[in-house]
């Protein structure tokens, strides 16, 4: 252990405020302290609005304009940070402190070559001449593991993949041998396999170069995988801090315990996610029971199995040419995919971005037409050749919930109107009054107060909106709901609530769910059967337990091994 005085970053009782237009101030960070030793990775975790990014920006001197350091101190490499100047004496941003941002697609200037963007900092900070800088740039690209580094120097950012760009960003951050690296969600925009490589690279920087890293992230798995120490933040305050293993295994603060408990496990399936506070019971359960009676009443006994089958589905995307009718490039997004879903089960479709899973969701829900192959609902063709027109009960039967809760509700319409739209359109109510009481019941069934109907979407949080989105889908009295990444833009504690809600609704009404997700842990917790996709093809389909415990396809095995999880640390003791 190195003495505290040698720490590369020491934050002591920091308070950051934003003065607001109405004269009051908003405190983004309150009384936050942490230290980072050379070679140490210190993770700063929390959900959105926790203040973790504000700390990262403050350390870099990139605090957004009205924000200011109101109290406390920051020492970088033993030198005090001047809150007025936004830097510490003798510490040069870019030379002594390096930065890595979230989105590698936008962090690099599209008009300049990789080489020139790598070299400029060295030329300014280290006063290297062009030749020396170029030589060092080459070295850096090699050290971050970019293939053909000499050729890449002359390449432009758009010619590199996302993972390669993030390596270039890291190389640029390293170019002047910084003592401290601030990495703000460095792998959030990347796929699991690329994420694993970048995380390994970061770990190496700490171990081999002795760089201290402040890792800002929301992903507990990432923390468990590479961080030495962790600080958990909640609404601007530090709730818990300590060695990673210690904090994750035995969190003391109730919030920390809830947060860690809400992270879905990949190694075993739990009944429900543990959530903080009581979940809406009582009225919600009554409303769900009513939904169930309605569902049973309307259900004709002709339950053909399977409820959905997808047969040899292919989907091509063609870009439109310049002239009307002309054809552009053709791209096959889904290649000969077949699977079936049984009534009442939760079927998971999992894969990395661009694997075609969302395209399948769109075909099933009728948003796009397949190029070939077909989709059958209870034996009736609903997409592909010879498809029956999707109207009335056939259209009603399959509904969808979406990823982004902020765009899934029309911000210009009241909740009541949004929810009554399917009810009125399918003529499920005989009168407006009946529709209104239906809407009230739906809102209650998803755990909100029925008064919500009078308000506009902006009055609700992301999680509440996702509940309303689910209520809208339920309004059509569907048999199958397609859930397209329903929780991937939500914080982990909210995710737990929404997933619990979906489980409850399914148990109460006997719905069938098709769950599309890139998150293997979520799929494990939710699904009865799972199919794995890559590059438009379906690689493997199995029972969830079989797939996760004994994957057959090498790709599935690889994916499972790469997902950063808490399981290693959490062990059995944490299960309760």
């Amino acid at each position, binding site marked *: 252990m190195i003495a505290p005085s040698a720490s590369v970053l020491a934050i002591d009782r920091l308070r950051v405020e934003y003065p607001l237009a109405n004269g009051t101030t908003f405190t983004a960070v309150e009384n936050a302290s942490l230290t980072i030793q050379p070679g140490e990775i210190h993770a700063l975790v929390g959900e959105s609005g926790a203040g973790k990014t504000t700390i990262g920006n403050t350390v870099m001197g990139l605090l*957004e304009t009205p924000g200011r350091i109101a109290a406390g101190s920051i020492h970088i490499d033993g030198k005090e940070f001047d809150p007025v100047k936004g830097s510490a004496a003798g510490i040069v941003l870019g030379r002594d402190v390096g930065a890595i941002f979230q989105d590698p697609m936008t962090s690099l200037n599209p008009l300049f070559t990789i080489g020139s963007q790598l070299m400029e900092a060295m030329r300014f900070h280290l006063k290297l001449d062009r030749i020396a800088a170029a030589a060092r740039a080459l070295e850096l690209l090699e050290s971050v593991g970019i293939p053909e580094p000499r050729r890449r120097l002359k390449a432009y950012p758009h010619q590199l993949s996302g993972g390669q760009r993030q390596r270039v960003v890291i190389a640029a951050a390293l170019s002047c041998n910084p003592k401290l690296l601030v990495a703000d969600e460095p792998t959030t925009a990347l796929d699991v396999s690329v994420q694993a490589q970048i995380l390994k690279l970061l770990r190496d920087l700490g171990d081999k170069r002795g760089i201290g890293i402040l890792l800002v992230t929301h992903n507990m798995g990432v923390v468990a995988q590479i961080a030495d120490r962790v600080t958990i933040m909640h609404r601007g305050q530090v709730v818990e801090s300590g060695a990673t293993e210690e904090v994750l295994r035995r969190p003391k603060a109730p919030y920390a315990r809830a947060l860690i408990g809400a992270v879905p496990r990949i190694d075993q399936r739990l009944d429900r996610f543990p959530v903080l506070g009581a979940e809406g019971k009582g009225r919600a359960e009554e409303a769900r029971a009513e939904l169930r009676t309605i569902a049973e009443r309307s259900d004709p006994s002709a339950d053909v199995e399977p409820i959905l089958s997808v047969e040899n589905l292919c989907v091509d995307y063609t870009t439109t*040419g310049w002239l*009307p*009718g002309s054809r552009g490039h053709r791209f096959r997004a889904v290649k000969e995919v077949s699977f079936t879903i049984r009534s009442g089960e939760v079927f998971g479709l999992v894969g990395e971005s661009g694997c075609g899973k969302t395209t399948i969701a769109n075909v099933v829900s*009728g948003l796009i037409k397949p190029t070939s192959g077909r989709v059958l609902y209870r034996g009736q063709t609903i997409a592909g050749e010879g498809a029956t027109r999707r109207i009335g009960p056939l259209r009603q039967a399959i*509904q969808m919930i*979406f990823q982004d809760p902020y765009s899934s509700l029309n911000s210009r319409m009241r909740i009541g109107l949004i929810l009554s739209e399917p009810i009125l359109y399918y003529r499920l109510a005989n009168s407006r009054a009946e529709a209104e009481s239906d809407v009230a019941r739906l809102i209650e069934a998803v755990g909100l107060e029925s008064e919500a109907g009078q308000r506009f979407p902006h009055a609700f949080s992301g999680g509440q909106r996702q509940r309303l989105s689910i209520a809208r889908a339920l309004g059509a009295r569907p048999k199958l709901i397609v859930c397209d990444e329903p929780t991937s833009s939500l914080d982990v504690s909210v995710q737990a609530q929404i997933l619990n809600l979906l489980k409850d609704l399914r148990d109460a009404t006997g719905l069938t769910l098709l769950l599309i997700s890139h998150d293997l842990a979520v799929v494990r917790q939710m699904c009865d059967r799972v199919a794995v996709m890559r590059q438009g093809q379906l690689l493997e389909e199995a029972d969830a337990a079989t797939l996760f415990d004994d994957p057959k396809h090498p790709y599935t095995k690889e994916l499972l091994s790469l997902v950063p999880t808490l399981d290693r640390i959490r062990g059995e003791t944490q299960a309760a």
Partner: protein
Amino acid sequence: MKTLAPPPSLLIRLGAPISVILAAILAFVLVACALLAPFIAPYDPTDLASFELMNAELPPAFTADGDPRFVLGTDNQGRDLLSAMLYGARVSIAIGGGAVLLAASLGVTLGLLAGFYGGKVDSVIMRVADVILSFPTILLALLVSGIARALLSGASTAEWAPIILICAIAIHEWVQYARTVRAATMVEAAKDYVRAAKVIGLPSRRIMLRHILPNVMSPVLVISTINLAAAVLTEATLSFLGVGMPPTYPSLGTLIRIGNEFVFSGIWWIALFPALALVILVLAVNIVGDWLRDRFNPKLRVKR
């Protein structure tokens, strides 16, 4: 014009600075004066009997040789300049407003269709738009009015002049609406609330009108404010060039054209006052439009 320019009260709610609110009020007063010209103008400039040549070219009342009957002086035919300006402004605003309404309704409809359906519908509409955009407003307007004038006999040209002008201006301006609305529609159509409406199976017409249209209207209002100013300018330019409103039924541009012939002889007021009125009107509208544009474009919002 209430539908085109936002009322001052709305601006206050949006937190507009005082200069913008003042500009909005000024624009409203000017537009109101122009629209109420028949009631507030001292003379009726369209009534040939009301003016005499012996009163021609009188300077404004506040100058040494001024005649108190004519506050801003008279033109070359002895018309009261203030009255002629009020009527002229009315013509300018009516044509500008008409052009904006025509362009907006055409552009919004086509943009909505192009953005929503994509594919062939989109290609056809956007290719037409590209070709039109290849020509500057003023050239296209000159051509349209030139062709229209050639097709119509001399007498009816004057009667049809306002309609010709409205079409000549709108033929270029609808493109901007169509492009903006198309882009906004494509963004909205990809959003989950529209996908949700499609999954429910709502008819396209309802999705476009009930769901998408209200969400793409704010840029349309911003463009309309700026375009109203631009349309008034284009009309003035055409009239100044002699292919717009005839001298018998003058707009502000026509008045400036008439005055321009006398500038060298030291009779500056016939050109200057209408020009001033035109610039102040357009400026007031532009100040509002400019602020609105910045306000609705978060990237341009100045951080303070």
